[in-house]
């Protein structure tokens, strides 16, 4: 089980970050390094990549606010 963490240090702490979209569905098989979600900060987007290969378990819904370093899902 590997946690999927929101990137740190890429935007100001005062900016609001949200999950823009998950490119895969819950339960999909993903490969390490694949872009699995997009984090929106203001009008910029940051790609969230899979930290490991395996089955994706989505923990944070699209449109939900997230913080740098937060666990938003897992790969098993």
């Amino acid at each position, binding site marked *: 089980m590997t946690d999927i963490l929101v990137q740190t240090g890429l935007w100001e702490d005062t900016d609001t970050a*949200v999950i*823009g*979209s998950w*490119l*895969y569905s819950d339960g*999909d*098989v*993903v*490969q390490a390094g*694949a*872009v699995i979600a*997009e*984090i*929106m900060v203001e*009008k910029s*987007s940051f790609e969230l990549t899979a930290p490991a*290969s395996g*089955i994706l378990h989505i923990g944070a819904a699209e449109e939900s606010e997230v913080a740098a370093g937060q666990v938003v899902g897992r790969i098993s």
Partner: protein
Amino acid sequence: MSSPEPVMRKIPIAKAMAEAIGQEMATDPSVLVMGEDIAKLGGVFGTTTGLLDRFGPERVRDTPISETAFIGAAVGLAASGMKPVVELMFVDFFGVCMDAIYNLAAKQCYFSGGQVTCPMVLMTSVGGGYGDAGQHSQCLYATFGHLPGMKVVIPSNAYDAKGLMLAAIRDPNPVIFMYHKALQGMGWLGTVKGSITDVPEDDYIVPIGKAKVVREGSDLTIVSLGAGVHQGLDAAKALAADGVKAEVIDLISIAPLDRETIRASVAKTGRLLVIDDDYLSYGIGAEVIASVCEDRALKLKAPPRRIAYPDIPVPFTPVMEHYVLPNAEKLLGEAKLIMETNA
């Protein structure tokens, strides 16, 4: 636990377009890209992400805000053997460059007796729904589809976007490559899930001029394109719960229009509903319905219907805009009426 499913590579339309352009640039030195904010920024809709770093400023050029200049230049480049891919950021801006598009690009091959072709791709964003008002939200499918000499396409998903872009760049004549903002995969616009699909890394073509049956059914034919395809699929799912089997056709190509696929479907279902988000009058729906009604061999079980954008400029206020935009709910209501019309 069941055996793991094959690993897919899911990407949105914007990435699929950029990947196709990059692959073609890597193999064909005559391909270049021009437009506003397409180099350093990678396109405001992400269509050229990463290309500047890979191919440099000679082949990936940010232009001044003059569509008249750079789209005119693209026509000239195409006449002299290059294959320019240019971006008209919003289709709404076509006014200032339309002479280059429909009087020069579209007619180059005809006027030269086939001696000078025009292998250019004009990619352009269409569609609203995010409160960008009347000059940044139009679709204008019919405006471009009406003019001979150009091919006009619009993908509903990333798989088709890549294959269509490769087909468009290799086409010896001008191709207008429309892409719908609601499907791009740009978070700030919201993205329809179904448009993010598994995209092979290989080279493949989605042929221009062929529609696709994206869901099979025998009771009703729903025809759409771009974002409307997903509304059609949503409505078809809801109809299935009522025992109505709807077939959904993704036009993919506005010009040429694949009338055969539409007619073959209506021959089976006898009922036709067209949905698109361009203006209603003289639009996609009118053309599709006429193509069916002209066919003497087709027997209809109910009068065909169309849903489109009313003949008014797009309102700015989200409440007003969403009130007039076509959606799956309106489609479902109309579909039920058609089914009740049954003789």
